[in-house]
């Protein structure tokens, strides 16, 4: 069993599955209304902004939480990016009647990317426990194992940064929309 990035963060009987980038890519491809939620950690390297934008270019809206919106403003990518506080956003996600960022309704597949580990973990817990009817699948593509996500990557140490970047490239490549 994978160890949570915060080792004591063992929530209970339902813990996320460690999957490959292609599996997550496949789910994104098949989702009806996917949403990419990015956090401030994407600002540590332009590469991560580029990955978010690449995912966004597949018609997937981006909720920029924390101060990550700066990265998109700086690269002048604003097509489908909206600032949202993560607490506020998760609160909306658990409401089946939420109109979404585009007014067309809630989402069925949520991808967490670049969010502070422990904050993301709590929001994933909320989605797992309360966004159940209709079901929202929430996954993480961060370099941490997130037990509260339905699917997650494993823990990837900074020494394996290039490997992690490769995984993200594979993920982007596997999205077909």
């Amino acid at each position, binding site marked *: 069993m994978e160890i*949570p990035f*915060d080792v004591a963060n063992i929530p209970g009987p339902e813990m996320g599955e460690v999957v490959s980038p292609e599996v997550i890519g496949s789910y994104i491809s098949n989702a009806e209304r996917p949403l990419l939620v990015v956090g401030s950690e994407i600002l540590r390297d332009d590469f991560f902004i580029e990955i978010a934008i690449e995912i966004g270019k597949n018609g997937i809206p981006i909720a920029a939480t924390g101060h990550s919106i700066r990265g998109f403003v700086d690269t002048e990518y604003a097509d489908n990016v909206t600032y949202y506080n993560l607490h506020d956003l998760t609160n909306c996600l658990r409401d089946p009647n939420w109109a979404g960022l585009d007014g067309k309704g809630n989402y069925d597949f949520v991808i967490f990317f670049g969010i502070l580990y422990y904050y993301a973990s*709590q929001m994933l817990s909320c989605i797992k426990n309360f966004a159940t009817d209709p079901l929202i699948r929430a996954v993480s593509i961060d370099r941490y194992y997130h037990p509260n996500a339905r699917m997650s990557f494993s823990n990837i140490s*900074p020494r394996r940064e290039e490997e992690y970047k490769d995984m993200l490239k594979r993920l982007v490549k596997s999205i077909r929309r």
Partner: protein
Amino acid sequence: MDELKNGDLFSIADLKNVRISIGKIAEEEEEWEPMGPHPMPRIATLRDWDFKLLNRYKPFYAPVCDMCCLCTYGKCDLTGNKKGACGIKMDAQQGRIVLLACLVGCSAHCGHGRHLLHDMIKKFGRDVPIDFGPEVDVEAPLTRLICGIKPKTIADFEQVFDYIEEQIVQLADALHTGQEGSYMDFESKALHMGMLDSLNKEAADIIQIACYGMPSSHEGGGPDVPLVDVGIGTIDTDKPVIIVIGHNVPPAADIGDYLTENGLEDKVELGGICCTSIDTTRVYKKAKIASALGRQLRVIRAGIADVIVIDEQCIRADILELCQKVHSPLIATNDKAMHGLVDRTDDDPDKIVDDLANERVPGVVILDPEQVGEVAVKTAIQMDKKRRKLRLILSDEEFKFYVNECIECGNCTLACPAGLHIGEANQSAATGTVKPLADFFDLCVGCGRCEQVCKKHIPIVDVITKAAYPQLKEEKGRMRIGRGPVWDSEIREVGAPIVLGTIPGIIAPIGCGNYPNGTKDAWLIVKEFAERNYIVTLTGCMAIDAGIWKDKEGKTLYERHHGRFGAGGVLNIGSCVSNAHIHDAAIKVASIFAGRNLRGNYEEIADYILSRVGACGVAWGAMSQKAASIATGFNRLGIPAVVGPHSAKYRRAFLGRADLKEDWKLIDASDGSEIYIEPGPQHLLVACETVEEALPMIAKLCFRPSDTDRGRSGKLTHYIDLNLKYLNTYPPDWHLFVRTASDLPIATRNALLKKLEDEQGWEIDWKMKKITEGPIRGYDPSFNPTNLERLIRKKR
């Protein structure tokens, strides 16, 4: 017959075997205000008000644990909002855990206050007057508001604690299996607990101010309180050093008294950690503050203390082990934290000193605060000589050895609450670049979990301390000592600007040091808002952490800004219990400025504050259960709070939905008409991921429906400007707060009108520079907002 006093006994001559005990004697009460509808509210008394709040700011839950293991039916799996064997659902279970956290926090303050009252009555008698000087008539706003009592002496707080203790027991009862089953009712109870907690804090601080003559509005108090040294580097280790840790000041005060009485003020250092240190500086002018809570482990490990004196709360549970390692004798002074030591309260002080100084015992318990001073000082003087030869900071060779030992297994990172990549920094130090490790000194929350999992047994905390030692020695800040109550005269000056919005808000950074990115965030929050002419009122560890940083000219924020409760002020109100005075300032705006009755009138005053007083708490490093009950107490009074990302682990937030129009309906008390308003304040309790996100959020939570157009224009200026400064973009919701063109800042009005026209489709009359269609509502200066139907003056 002689005059009878409370508690007296007397016998009647002709009646044998009859003895009558006199309980409380009812005294004729001063007529000071008519009693309001809710004196000493019970669990259900203010439930309607709570539900008004909870229906707008719905409880949001993020479980830390998906199971319940509180009874033998369990463990029960509640994942997906399933029910446990007792029938409780996940949401109610989360409400239950929140209530439990608030119970613990509220009990800590109540236990502290009651303990303090016992000690003070013993030392000073029952009749110490509550006299805060010429500028403070409304001496105890929360006590008046909740209990309907106007306390005259410290003994009057006995009935306040009686009330709180009874309510705590009733609320604790609701936690039992098979009691409450509704998350809304759990939250209403948590709000009740939070309110009681605010009352605890006020009582405790008033008692200590009254007894010790801490600053109030007597000479030298208020804005004129002196500055005090803050930071590890300010402790003079050439002298014997006593470090006090905790929250309950009498033992530390006794040390100060002993030093003064024996002419040792310049010969022995008295420093402290956490709130006891703040309160010690309020009673002993030579006291210093070594650090806030976040550096407790490192201050102890650094070995600067020749004796450590603990009282209660926020003390490390392994304090005795830590003290033994650095040969610092430990004196425990409170029965709530005795750490397995022998109670030596009634022993000969010299015998105790001899045992401690010769390390025959690692520490002692002394429960009478008036016996602590002599033992602590004499022990410190003896230990200082012995401890001088100790070398507790790692040598260069040891440092090199340890960083080279690291195999970068990553265990420390997985154990670290902040997820610090320590192995990487060790690697960097091994190749000669120490900075990444040194930078961790401020980012580290000082828990020590990393060391327990290190396969190579590297003392990681000590390695980081060694890396940062050059900076550490220079950590020398300044802070105003805790000033206690905000003066009535200050409220008279700023009440109108606050309610009308021309002072953009009261920002209250409070609480612990579990920051996501170090102590400098505390400094930045204070700096940003003080420079924008908000009133910044600090308490507790954030007050300390904000004081250790300096600007380019070498000035701290307390030196840069005045200490008045006015625009641009930076006020250290005091310790955790002192933050009741921030509640009190908001209450006094309703009372002194608006003339609302306080007595037993909580609901109306909370309604007033929610709609009109642009105040926002900031608990950026909230960690404890006390912080949970403190924030919940602020929330019931209508004051929102922004918390740091670690606080998502409190499991619950109170979040409003700007997109749900029906949630934002208010009543105009003038005629009873219902009005849809902008979402102000949008949330009651919300976490932000980074300080860059928090700064605009704090500004946003200062919007109130009562803002005048001039006030709204100022608030909007800061909200937009902070977004542009820290998020590089306009906030997506700024238009929601525009009611009329005059709400817009003059300097950018045309540009903003154009944006409203282009981006929101609003109709603008460009000739008149007016908005003709678009806003949620227009601006009506006579709008008298309320959530309470009973306050409607005349129904239309």
